[in-house]
């Protein structure tokens, strides 16, 4: 929108100017658009007189939530704001000044940081955009949350044709308050069709200078910068950088792709006047310098651009793209491990979890892959019998709340991909498009619209080509089609398709050859599902690792693999060292800092199974029963020393031993005997200690977590042996609507599961209707409700009332910091759960177990 020879001068602060004109602190500035239009117009006019070519309307907080108490309709406030800005432009007689509709953050955080949904945020922004008739452009500014920024950008792009600038606010650590990294912002929005990107507010120009340089290398978009007048004094709220200094530092930013500059908090028309002078002076010098290029003057060594300019410009122009979550950018500059485990294909336990909506299991898989070194996670939730769109959206949301690696959205259904692309926070990798017309025409437009990267599978209507050349031809077709749609080619990553060595042995070499062709001729990154190669062969890790190494050498950049395979991760790490990618082997040494040569493992006696197990394994030996604990002696007499050791491990909170002992007992003892004969008595012992005040909450939880680990072993054993797990009954748990503190409820959940109950966990901030529906669907005799704050107690009361009204026969137990037995009775609860232990006792009573 600018010819980029002339830098656009934006305006300065509105808020502080309004306060100087009499607006009280914390007052609603937008009200002045209607009540004091002349004062607002005067501020705009002073900025225009100082040199501003773009004035931001006084609509920073003009959204339906913040304007709820304004006393005027939202639309009227926005229309008046644009009118005031337009009036100032007209009065000035200038024709080069644009009116920008200013959109600030909503003031609520989107899930999982807060309680607002992405769709609600989108609606709020869309309403603002639609009201902005008569504006020349849209500026989304002072954003902290990447999700919210994305909602705003989508709302702007889908509801208007105006140019859009986006600026976020970064702190001294180069991140926004919500943790968004500069590179993440750059990657997320570089291909979403906005016209300028940058930073405003929070810091002064000096602090922003290095961040401007970083952003310059991370995007090819023009940069927009609007710093504060330095840093505010927290007590006096005055800023410490004067106009002259402000201009001087801004000048240093100008070489780095800056297309628009202005000021934020603390700046005034004086700052903009000085800024205008400096910018125009710099432009004149730049033009003179460039005109003299190659002449004697240039040869005299009087460099116009700063020392680091060439280096940063080269990085900007040569860096491949990447993908990002809000807090982590992964550039496609070197081989990156994509974790393959979030995928039901061939995984019984994962399928079970998907069907049961067991998010904890799925999230656990994600965390373990990230801890093992995965830099990207593939997410595939396609399974007959589930709503793939809804599940994909849910899994992505929950994953992004607990892991910071970017995701690869794996589905071939456009509707699933679109729903996921919309709510994904950051820039994802889409897996995948292929050479079929149907796929090209439905998937690529989504990639384009949401600015994603995409995996191109080298197959088409004719299937998978046998030769490398055939697959390469499909790759070329996908690339040219994508480019014709305006997708930058670097956003394509080509999958040359791994064939199974056991079935198509000769094909493996063709895949490797195709990878090399993609690398050498198309200069694009290559993806492979590595583990497929070994299907049907024994000791798969050996084949996988060798294939991975060979493929890397041929140009593979994005192996989709099992990061929990030590051998494969080792090969990848070693490759990075040997190819001089991992400089000074730092990452390698970090990964193996605790490594020790393998030693002969002393096999626990119990681990061999059989009768030995009942005598107690090495893992449990030496734990010893707590002094005076007769239960331990009883268990030892009845079930053997191994069982007694497990009991003791639970009582003492020894997680590793607990898991090992359970494993070894499972071969020889009935799993229900382990639960009822060992685990529950152990929990009862700890529970009694807690009730008497001898033990404290952390100790209770520690024991509970040992039992949790033991249950995981039992469950996995039963899945393997095909036996059904026995549940003592189903309980529905929820933290009530309006309340977002859920650790208390989660503690109760763990303990209930410990005692063999199945818990349907509805989460936090749960709609009343959702509780009623879950109670009805499960037919549960017991619903547990939790609330932390006094203010959400009415919501608890309403939920109980709704359960009663629905005629459901369930009992209700309530708990939470502010509850009392009296209040529990008053709001119609059947039971008051003083703590997690008491709640378990109540459940036992209700279920009669």
């Amino acid at each position, binding site marked *: 929108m600018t010819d980029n020879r002339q830098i656009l001068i934006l305006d300065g602060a509105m808020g502080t100017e309004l306060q100087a004109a009499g607006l009280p602190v914390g007052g609603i500035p937008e009200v002045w658009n209607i009540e004091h239009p002349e004062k607002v117009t005067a501020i705009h006019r002073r900025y225009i007189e100082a040199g501003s070519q773009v004035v931001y309307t006084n609509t920073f907080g003009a959204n339906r939530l913040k304007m709820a108490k304004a006393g005027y309709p939202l639309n009227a406030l926005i229309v008046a704001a644009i009118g005031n800005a337009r009036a100032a432009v007209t009065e000035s007689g200038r024709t080069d000044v644009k009116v920008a509709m200013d959109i600030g953050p909503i003031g609520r955080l989107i899930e999982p940081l807060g309680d607002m949904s992405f769709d609600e945020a989108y609606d709020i922004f869309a309403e603002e955009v639609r009201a902005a008739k008569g504006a020349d452009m849209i500026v989304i500014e002072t954003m902290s949350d990447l999700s919210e920024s994305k909602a705003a950008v989508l709302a702007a792009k889908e509801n208007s044709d105006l140019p859009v600038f986006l600026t976020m606010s970064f702190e001294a*650590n180069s991140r926004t308050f919500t943790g968004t990294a500069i590179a993440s912002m750059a990657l997320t929005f570089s291909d979403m069709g906005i016209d300028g990107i940058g930073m405003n507010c929070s810091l002064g120009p000096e602090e922003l200078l290095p961040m401007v340089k970083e952003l310059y290398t991370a995007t090819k978009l023009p940069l927009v910068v609007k710093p504060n007048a330095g840093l505010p004094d927290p007590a006096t709220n005055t800023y410490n950088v004067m106009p002259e200094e402000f201009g001087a530092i801004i000048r240093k930013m100008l070489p780095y792709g800056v297309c628009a500059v202005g000021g934020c908090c603390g700046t005034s028309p004086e700052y903009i006047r000085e800024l205008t002078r400096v910018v125009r002076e710099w432009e004149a010098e730049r033009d003179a310098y460039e005109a003299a290029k190659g002449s004697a003057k240039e040869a005299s060594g009087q460099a116009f651009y700063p020392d680091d300019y060439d280096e940063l410009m080269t990085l900007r122009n040569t860096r491949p793209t990447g993908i990002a979550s809000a807090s982590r950018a992964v550039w496609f500059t070197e081989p990156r491990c994509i974790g393959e485990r979030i995928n039901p294909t061939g995984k019984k336990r994962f399928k079970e979890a998907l069907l049961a909506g067991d998010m904890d299991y799925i999230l656990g898989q994600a965390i373990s892959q990230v801890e093992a070194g995965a830099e990207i996670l593939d997410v595939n939730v396609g399974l007959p019998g589930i709503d793939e769109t809804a599940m994909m959206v849910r899994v992505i949301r929950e994953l992004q709340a607990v892991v910071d690696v970017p995701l690869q959205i794996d589905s071939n259904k456009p509707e699933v991909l679109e729903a996921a692309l919309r709510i994904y926070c950051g820039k994802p990798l889409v897996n995948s498009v292929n050479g079929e017309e149907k796929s090209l025409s439905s998937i690529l437009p989504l990639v384009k619209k949401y600015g994603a990267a995409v995996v191109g599978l080298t197959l088409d209507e004719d299937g998978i080509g046998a030769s490398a050349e055939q697959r390469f031809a499909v790759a070329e077709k996908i690339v040219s089609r994508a480019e014709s749609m305006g997708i930058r080619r670097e956003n394509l990553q080509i999958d040359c398709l791994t064939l199974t060595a056991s079935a198509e042995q000769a094909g493996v070499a063709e895949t490797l050859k195709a990878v090399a062709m993609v690398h050498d001729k198309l200069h694009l990154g290559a993806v492979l599902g590595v583990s497929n190669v070994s299907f049907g062969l024994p000791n798969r890790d050996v084949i996988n690792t060798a294939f991975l190494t060979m493929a890397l050498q041929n140009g593979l950049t994005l192996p989709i693999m099992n990061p929990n395979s030590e051998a494969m991760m080792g090969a990848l790490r070693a490759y990075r060292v040997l190819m001089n990618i991992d400089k000074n082997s730092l990452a390698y040494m970090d990964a193996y800092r605790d490594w020790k040569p393998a030693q002969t493992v002393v096999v626990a006696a119990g681990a061999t199974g059989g009768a030995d197990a009942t005598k107690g394994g090495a893992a449990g030996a030496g734990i010893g029963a707590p002094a005076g604990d007769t239960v331990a002696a009883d268990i030892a007499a009845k079930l053997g020393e191994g069982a007694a050791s497990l009991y003791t491990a639970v009582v003492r909170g020894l997680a590793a031993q607990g898991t090992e002992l359970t494993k070894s007992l499972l071969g020889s003892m009935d799993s229900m005997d382990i639960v009822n004969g060992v685990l529950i008595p152990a929990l009862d012992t700890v529970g009694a200690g807690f009730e008497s005040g001898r033990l404290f909450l952390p100790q209770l939880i520690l024991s509970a977590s040992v039992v949790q680990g033991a249950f995981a072993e039992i469950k996995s054993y039963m899945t393997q042996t095909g036996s059904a797990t026995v549940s003592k009954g189903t309980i529905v748990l929820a933290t009530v609507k309006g309340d977002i503190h859920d650790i208390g409820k989660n503690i109760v959940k763990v303990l209930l599961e410990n005692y063999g109950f199945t818990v349907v966990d509805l989460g936090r901030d749960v709609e009343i209707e959702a509780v009623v529906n879950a109670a009805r669907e499960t037919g549960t005799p017991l619903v547990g409700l939790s609330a932390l704050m006094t203010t959400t107690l009415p919501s608890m009361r309403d939920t109980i009332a709704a359960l009663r009204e629905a005629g459901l026969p369930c009992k209700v137990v309530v708990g939470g910091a502010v509850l009392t037995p009296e209040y529990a009775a008053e709001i119609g609860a059947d039971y008051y759960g003083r703590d997690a232990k008491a709640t378990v006792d109540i459940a036992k009573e209700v279920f009669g177990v």
Partner: protein
Amino acid sequence: MVELKPIRMDEAARYLGYGDTTPDETILALMKECEAPLMEACHPAYSVGIFDMECCSEDEVKLAECALTLTGKDIVKHLVGCTKVALMAATLGPGVDMLMRRLQLTSMPKAVLTDAMAGAAIEQICDDIQAELQGKMPLYRQTWRFSPGYGDLPLAMQDELLAAVEANKRIGLATTDSHMLTPLKSVTAIIGLQDMTKELRKVATEDGDAISAPVGACAAGACAGCAYHDSCISRQDKGTQETDK
């Protein structure tokens, strides 16, 4: 600048219900293990605004050049004898929320301990902010921290308090639909500032006027109105105590 110092484990233990008991070695070791990830996840930020008290009725305090009006008898009682009010918003940042979500999936014991430690950390940040304020305004005595939702001061006031210190813009603090703070480990507070020079004069002339009563008395009085009065662990273990520890 206020920076995060090593977390006071005794405070964290108190939140966990230990009272004066020291947790056993296993728990202490686990707490130690939780400390580094928590410190890494914390990005404390705060915003403070100082306002003159404009007028004060029986159940309303108005602040000069500020759109926020504090309502309720309890806040009036809290601000007795004050001429200025400091509004404060502080947060450990959203990194702690993510850490907590993650820990609840991987280790509930660590989640429980980290939660308490984060509670101790945010209180400590608030103490440091008050200490910093004291350094800047040495002639003012500060009351303890009164927050929206205490006594009859509506929780809904949270939103306006955040607006008055521009907490959303400056420190990324927001409220939910039901006026709860997000990120979760955050605090807002209203601190009364008593001009000690005036108070001394008052004591000299009127001798023992209620206005110059020690701040501690005020805190004890307000404890009864606290929403957590009946279930507060500290109270059950120790009886009434000052809340501004």
